[in-house]
């Protein structure tokens, strides 16, 4: 006969939280920021430049992405094929990532191969060949790649939401990687010019690994060789703004078996003092599995495989977004439920049991999520991009654990905007349009995209 233990166990003794000591060096005009991870076989190095999508001007959206791809098309001393084989034979690719605030080129290798991998990284980033014919080919490939990507549900809805929130006349009102048309129209000069403008500053080299086996100064010298000494100035945050009336924007996807929802509004930038209570509020609303949105739309109604809400915050602007795919036939009631939960959270705030989950989850994830060199490199990147102190993660943990119901409820009241939220619905317009109109949630307009 099976015997179960009915009593839920109490937790054991908590282990102390410790973020590794952050080591900072000034080398050859640039900065090295490192975390010591004794015993790890792998090490990560990432060259971080202030050259993200936010540095692009209107009309050349996606140029950073095309440049990133062009970096691997050969260097001053190596063909593209030779470069690929040299780097991959060390055990790594050149991982290139671009967000609104930064460009990062990252290698991950067994520790002994790190010096050679950083040399190759620097060769591509600082001394790429950038042959015009290669750039044109890469640009065409990237435009086609975006066309393929935009055939998925989501990218069009994201673009429509972004444009509605910020306006297409500012850079961040347009897609981070541009769209198939804008990328196809980029010139060789656009790409070479972006490199000249933003890739010659030294930037920061992030290193995570067993520092007893790594010469940080040598890595820094390799990464910063040939860079000039000026660092770009970060602009002030844009005014947040926000709509006062709700609207539904329909993006047609004929025959779609699901409707892709992107519900959003503007939000403060990343370094806003409400960062902690605001993001905890988003976890209660739609971050945790047992969050209000996921509980109602998935676990009670069965409308979706999952729904989540989060703040996307960068240095100069932010937005709040709720995302889900819902079965076509239940699009309208799903939208009503989602808006209802967002409005309730804004007006009534959070409860202690819900906040307890959010708090402990995020605090615990600082340990659970930080195990690999790559995860530590990413944590270092947060320090550098947002100019945070070395003890930031330890302090963040404390502020998460001490956030109160009143503080978080005040933040949800101040930063959620249920009345002015834009409800982008990418789905089968013929099947759902009249039902969306009947919800009374707001005017229904169709996006031409």
């Amino acid at each position, binding site marked *: *006969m*099976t*015997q*179960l*233990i009915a009593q*839920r*166990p*109490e*937790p*054991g*003794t*908590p*282990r102390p*939280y410790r973020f590794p000591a952050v080591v900072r060096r000034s080398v050859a005009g640039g900065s090295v920021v490192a975390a010591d991870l004794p015993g*790890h*076989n*792998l090490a990560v190095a990432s060259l971080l430049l202030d050259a993200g999508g936010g540095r692009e001007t209107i009309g050349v959206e996606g140029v950073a992405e095309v440049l990133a791809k062009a970096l691997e098309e050969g260097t001053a001393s190596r063909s*593209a*094929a030779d470069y*690929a*084989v040299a780097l*991959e*034979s060390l*055990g*790594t*690719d050149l991982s290139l990532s671009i967000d609104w605030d930064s460009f990062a080129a990252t290698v*991950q290798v*067994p520790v002994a191969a790190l010096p050679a991998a950083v040399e190759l990284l620097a060769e591509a980033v600082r001394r790429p060949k950038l042959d015009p014919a290669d750039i044109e080919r890469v640009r065409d*490939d990237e435009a*086609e*790649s975006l066309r*393929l990507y935009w*055939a998925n*549900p989501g990218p069009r809805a994201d673009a429509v939401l972004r444009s509605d929130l910020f306006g297409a006349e500012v850079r961040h009102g347009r897609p981070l990687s541009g769209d198939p048309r804008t990328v196809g129209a980029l010139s060789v000069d656009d790409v070479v010019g972006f490199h000249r403008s933003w890739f010659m500053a030294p930037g920061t080299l992030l290193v995570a690994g067993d520092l007893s086996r790594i010469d940080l100064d040598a890595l820094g010298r390799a990464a910063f060789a040939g860079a000039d000494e000026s660092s770009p100035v970060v602009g002030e945050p844009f005014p947040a703004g926000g709509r006062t009336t709700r609207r539904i924007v329909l993006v047609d996807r004929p*025959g*779609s*078996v*699901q409707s892709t929802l992107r519900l959003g509004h503007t939000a403060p930038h990343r370094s806003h003092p409400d960062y902690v209570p605001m993001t905890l509020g988003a976890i209660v609303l739609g971050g*945790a*599995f*047992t969050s209000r949105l996921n*509980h109602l739309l*998935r*676990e009670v109604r*069965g*409308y*979706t*495989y999952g729904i989540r809400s989060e703040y996307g915050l960068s240095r100069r602007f932010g937005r709040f977004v709720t995302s889900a*795919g819902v*079965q076509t036939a239940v699009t309208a009631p799903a939208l009503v439920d989602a808006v209802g939960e967002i409005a309730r959270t804004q007006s009534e705030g959070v409860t202690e049991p819900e906040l307890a989950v959010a708090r*402990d*989850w995020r605090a*615990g*994830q600082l*340990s*659970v*999520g930080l*195990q*690999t060199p*790559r995860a530590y490199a990413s944590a270092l990147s947060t320090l550098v991009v947002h100019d945070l102190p070395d003890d930031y993660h330890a302090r963040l943990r404390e502020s998460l654990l001490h956030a109160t119901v009143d503080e978080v409820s005040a933040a949800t009241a101040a930063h959620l905007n249920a009345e002015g939220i834009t409800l982008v619905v990418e789905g089968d317009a013929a099947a759902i349009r009249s039902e969306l109109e009947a919800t009374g949630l707001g005017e229904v307009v169709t996006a031409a995209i």
Partner: protein
Amino acid sequence: MSETGYPWPIETTRLANGMRVVVSEDRSAPVVAVNLWYDVGSRHEPDGQTGFAHLFEHLMFEGSVNVPKTEHMRLVQGNGGSLNATTNPDRTNYFETLPAEHLELALWLEADRMGGLVPALVQETLDNQRDVVKNERRQRYENVPYGDAWLRLLPLLYPEGHPYHHPTIGSMEDLNAAELATFQAFHRSYYVPDNAVLTVAGDAAPAEVFALAAKYFGGLTAGGQRPPAPTGSLAGWAGPVSSVVAAEVPAPRVYLAHRTYPYGSTEHDAVTVLATVLGQGRGSRLYRLLADGARLAQPDTVGAYGVDLAYAPAPLIASATARPGVTAARLGAALAEVVDELVTGEVTEQELARAQALLETEWWTAVATVDGRADLLSRYTTLFGDPARVGSRLPGWRAVTTSALAEVAREVLRPEDRVTLVYEPMEAVA
């Protein structure tokens, strides 16, 4: 350089009810991973019950005798943890990683749903999770271009009646017909201690884990006879086979697939290296010949990989999407030519070294986390009865030679054994 791919201690025990327990201590981070493999997957599903193992996995999160509905997720996340579960043809796994002081909570939760799910399982829960799974199917497979490729490849690769013939997500018809009693019986058959492996990796001592495992799982009763998975046979499979699909896709795409060897064999190690030579990275054959050289394929769409299935020859799949103006036929012929060259030509030492270096990093990445380690230990215990064999995977890749690659390529990449799946954009066909 480490000789073994697993330089951490491994200790094991077996409870009186047959449950195997594996512990791998590592005090470097204050976290602990708990991982269970149940030896049941979609390969066990009889006709008319496709998708049941996976739907059942969902039910495991919906409450048990001492854990009310939604509490499982709330308790794990609310104590700082991450959690999930996955189902594939071979097995079902459940896992959570928590701050180490919550180890006992995780074991309590896992034991309660292993020993006490059935009394808590109600029709309303089944109906709700059936809808969730149907939406998972829509979201992952039906609403995205090429999303159903895996669903289409399996029946081409494995004949009717073979355990890998049908996909794990199942069919909408079978999901609609799923009855509560079937799931109750499913749990009684397969969710028993002697059909499970529990692994704990991270900030916990073996003696402590063994004692807690005995405390929480020791009172569970061993299962009875379980229906064996159908063995299936490939005899009579006649190839080559090809299938052309007209679909809402933005460009032609071609998949080539071959059945190779089961996961865990020396030959499977060689196939993993071969797939890396063929289709991983910018230095791979597919990238150099199809994307860069002939410019037939979109650069970011070419790739090849071996699938980690253990109970029949696992597939190696290569795929590429056409550049504008390139037909599926032209791309398909070129893709086949690249694969054929692996049979007729030779892989160079440089190509082999590149692939092995990439796999070396991939391996150390997989074992860099306690959750990655716990899953591998559960895998090797379930599949081979020996968690320590996990250390042999990386040396296995290192030991592959160019002649071993030539040998497996000749054996499994024959054109007559090939499965080809082609997607054509709807308008190109009309």
